[in-house]
């Protein structure tokens, strides 16, 4: 039983990280029907942004008060990069065939990885991420379960972000504008909505959450490298599809389900196909199974009509 709860906690922790990133895929897809494959790199930039903030301004500090600044640094870096991408790479291709922005996204993804590898000092190998009091350090025991401090940070971050996001979408003018644009951009434009701005906001929201995820990743793994965005991005994309791409709540649910399934597969699948080398396989098996029986994803594709 303890083992099960332990894996559940590990899964939820991992899933929260996926969910934070997955929201970025799904929000952008919901608005412009673009799979932003560079989103994993936006997450990676967030992690480096937070590391850079710490290195430049707070080197040597480990107090908890540094963490908000690191989060701000991460969010600023990832949002800035995402907005730049949207403006420079995606907007000119808005009316191009779907394949063009998709390939552009893959190109940007490689570009960002290489840019960080070449130009961030020391990024050719993994860099240690600062350890912060209270959110990193010795794990503690609750009953028979080991709780890592960073896990609390990750899960807490997801809860806070999800609540803020819900509020933004359902209770603000801008959120209403986003819903309108996702359902019918042309009509939304005729209602006086600045569609370009809404699209930029969608990118910014996704990037902000990815930035937070970047900090979480750093705290969890205690080091970061230029390649962390690849697998995290792929998993988060899987989570978004699993939950139903375009559906924000779906991304959260998809992320959590994916994380839990991975953790459980590691622990409970016996023999050759069990253990951590196979966890990615089981994650994608889950995706395939869900897509066969429920192609629109767990929570339904978009919150939107296609009519």
């Amino acid at each position, binding site marked *: 039983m303890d083992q099960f709860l332990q894996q559940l906690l590990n899964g939820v922790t991992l899933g929260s990280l996926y969910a934070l990133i997955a929201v970025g895929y799904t929000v952008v897809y919901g608005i412009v029907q673009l799979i932003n494959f560079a989103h994993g790199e936006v997450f990676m930039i967030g992690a480096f942004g937070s590391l850079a903030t710490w290195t430049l301004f707070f080197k040597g500090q480990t107090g908890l008060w540094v963490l908000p600044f690191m989060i701000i640094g991460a969010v600023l870096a990832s949002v800035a990069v995402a907005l730049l991408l949207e403006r420079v790479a995606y907007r000119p291709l808005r009316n191009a065939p779907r394949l063009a922005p998709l390939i552009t996204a893959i190109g940007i993804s490689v570009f960002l990885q290489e840019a960080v590898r070449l130009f961030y000092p020391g990024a050719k190998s993994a860099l240690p991420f600062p350890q912060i009091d209270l959110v990193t350090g010795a794990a503690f025991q609750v009953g028979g379960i080991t709780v890592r401090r960073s896990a609390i940070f990750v899960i807490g971050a997801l809860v806070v972000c999800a609540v*803020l996001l819900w509020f*933004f979408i359902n*209770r*603000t*003018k*801008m*959120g*209403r*504008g986003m*819903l*309108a644009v996702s*359902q*019918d951009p*042309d*009509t*939304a*434009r*005729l*209602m*006086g*909505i*600045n569609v370009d701005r809404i699209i930029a*906001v969608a990118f910014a929201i996704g990037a902000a959450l990815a930035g937070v995820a970047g900090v979480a990743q750093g705290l969890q793994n205690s080091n970061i490298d230029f390649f962390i965005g690849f697998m995290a991005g792929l998993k988060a994309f899987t989570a978004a599809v699993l939950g139903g791409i375009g559906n924000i709540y779906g991304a959260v649910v998809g992320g959590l389900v994916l994380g839990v399934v991975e953790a459980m597969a590691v622990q409970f699948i016996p023999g050759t196909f069990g253990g951590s080398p196979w966890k990615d396989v089981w994650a994608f098996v889950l995706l395939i199974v869900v897509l066969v029986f429920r192609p629109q994803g767990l929570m339904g594709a978009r*919150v*939107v*009509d296609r*009519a």
Partner: protein
Amino acid sequence: MTTTTHDRPSAPAASGKAVLEATGVIMRFGGLTAVNNVNLRVNEGEIVGLIGPNGAGKTTFFNCLTGMYKPTEGEVKFQGTVLPPKPRAVVQAGMARTFQNIRLFANMTALENVMVGRYCRTSAMALTSIIRGPKYRHEEEATRARAQELLNFVGLGKTSEHLARNLPYGDQRRLEIARALATDPKLILLDEPTAGMNPKETEEAKELIFRIRDMGLAVVVIEHDMRFIFTLCDRVLCLVRGETLIEGSPQVVQSDPRVIEAYIGKPDDDELEEEAAKEDQA
């Protein structure tokens, strides 16, 4: 109630001042001329009807007026100025429209749909809506109140929390009108507002359009229902194959034999059309 609607006098707001002036509008799509040299003047507090057989270019002309298309030639002046061909600028200036095929935000509630219509009249931006200052909250409340008021106005006051896609057809049309009114327009363009409505709903729609006019708005209506158009409008413009066939009072247009001919056709119309097509190719 419905018996008083016919031959209703023009609203006092009708002052003869032009709200919309389209002169020499030509719209070509490649070799096809969809709208050819059409003029239209709409005065304050006036209801103008736009009729014509299918494919006459009514909706294309509408799209030129509302800035969805930039006319190939000619100009459209709204309150004396040529608007930039940007939907946002057009809405901001005070022109609103509905669609032939209903284009509501299907998965939003009726109230939310109308609130989206208020978008261009409120100032709250991304940052202020996250911080939620008192000004923002005040504005949000005002938007909600105004939206509810408009729903009441079109007779949908009780269905404000229903999703737009679950509303009956006639209600969806009225919701579209409420959403258009939410942009505080001076001119509203209705593209087949009674399509698919039963006679009772049509009569209600007419009543609603009169009430909109009485608020001081100018109205342009595209419609196929002749009885509807001739009892509603102050002036009627008939388009055939992109060109103005006739413009005038409902009585004049109604009694013009060419209008009926345009709709029903002459016996040899098909052959004539074929000849015309050959000439076009040459």
